[in-house]
């Protein structure tokens, strides 16, 4: 038996790279969709449903491309419905229960702020189909960022109650931010291929946008050096992902060959 680790091929790395991006978007899209019909006001109900639709749209396009790269006859539905929790490599940040409106907004803001800088770099990727997708999605991410940022300001600098609740949300979410900048052999290989990006090159930009927004919203910025969760890019999740998947996947798995007519 060889003790050497099996070398990661470029194809495997690209597949993992795309699935990480896609899983983030599918899982957060599913979480935000839980607000549909439950928003605090009609406009926000529509906004969250729209953001969900965008995120799931982004995931679909990425999964389709992943299927093409993998070349094993799978499609986008396979990646969404027929993988188990340990196969999902989304950020733990995305799978946390939706909480109250402030929690959902705080999470969306943190995710959008990161995605904005991430996609600004990724759009230069040396792969036409991939960068085309990224460019398209980036335009929509800007709307998500603008929307969630405005709500952070409004809730933070709002009433005593809204201030307290969104502050608690940020405090609770903070330990899930370490993973945003996680990198491993997949990233390294993709950087070498001219596709991947080095998250340390835009980490300060992300932090600055988040810090500036929280300060403007009269909120305390939690400690960036505090304990941070890890493991999601290797399939380690919180207990919440399994429940989310059970709900999202059961219908498709009960009727695996069903087709929309």
């Amino acid at each position, binding site marked *: 038996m060889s003790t050497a680790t099996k070398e990661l091929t470029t194809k495997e790395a690209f597949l993992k790279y795309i699935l990480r991006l896609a899983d983030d978007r599918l899982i957060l899209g599913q979480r935000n969709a839980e607000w549909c019909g439950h928003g605090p006001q009609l*406009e*926000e109900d529509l906004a969250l449903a729209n953001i969900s639709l965008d995120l799931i749209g982004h995931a679909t396009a990425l999964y389709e491309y992943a299927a093409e790269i993998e070349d094993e006859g799978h499609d986008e539905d396979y990646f969404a419905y027929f993988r188990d929790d340990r196969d999902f490599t989304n950020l733990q940040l995305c799978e946390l229960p939706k909480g109250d409106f402030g929690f959902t907004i705080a999470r969306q803001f943190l995710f959008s702020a990161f995605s904005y800088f991430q996609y600004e770099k990724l759009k230069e990727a040396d792969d036409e189909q991939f960068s085309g997708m990224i460019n398209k999605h980036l335009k929509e991410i800007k709307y998500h960022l603008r*929307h969630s940022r405005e709500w952070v300001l409004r809730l933070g600098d709002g009433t005593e109650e809204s201030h307290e609740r969104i502050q608690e949300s940020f405090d609770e979410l903070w330990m899930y931010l370490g993973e945003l900048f996680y990198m491993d052999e997949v990233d390294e290989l993709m950087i070498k291929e001219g596709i991947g990006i080095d998250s340390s090159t835009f980490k300060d930009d992300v932090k600055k946008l988040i810090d500036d927004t929280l300060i403007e919203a009269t909120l305390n910025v939690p400690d960036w050096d505090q304990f941070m969760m890890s493991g999601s890019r290797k399939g380690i999740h919180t207990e919440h992902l399994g429940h989310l998947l059970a709900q999202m996947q059961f219908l498709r798995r009960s009727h695996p060959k069903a087709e929309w007519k």
Partner: protein
Amino acid sequence: MILQTHTEEQIWDYLKEVTDPEIPVLNIVEMGIARKVEIDSDQVLVKITPTYSGCPAMNAIEKLVNEKLEERGVQDFKVKLDFAETWTTDWMTEEAKGKLKDYGIAPPEKTEEEGDFLKSLSGTKVIPCPFCESFDTKLVSQFGSTACKSQYFCDNCDQPFEHFKCI
């Protein structure tokens, strides 16, 4: 062998008969959704591109294009989704923007210059009311009844209206 009896120009005319199901005053050519018509030997290839990635109208549009070409007797054709170019509201013709306004939707302005985005985060653009032209309007929500529109309210004529977001 089927001889293609339809010219490229004719195909474009047929595509102009397909309207956007969400905004029925606009056809998919003036929207910039129909991108390319190629006639290769006998096959007609039509390339369309989605506006928003999550736009539920896209499947409907693809279906409508297929039905239209069939109805017009085009024999051998293929409709393909093309993602290489990124759709932008700048592709909408001036005529289309005029039609949008007449329909009661404030048309998209020219998209912002690169690099201005972070600075523009705090400000909102003033969108004139499509009904009374007043600038006394306010943004109600970035997101509206469809992915491509945001909601505004005009304080001058007391009318809510939608704005086609520029992307």
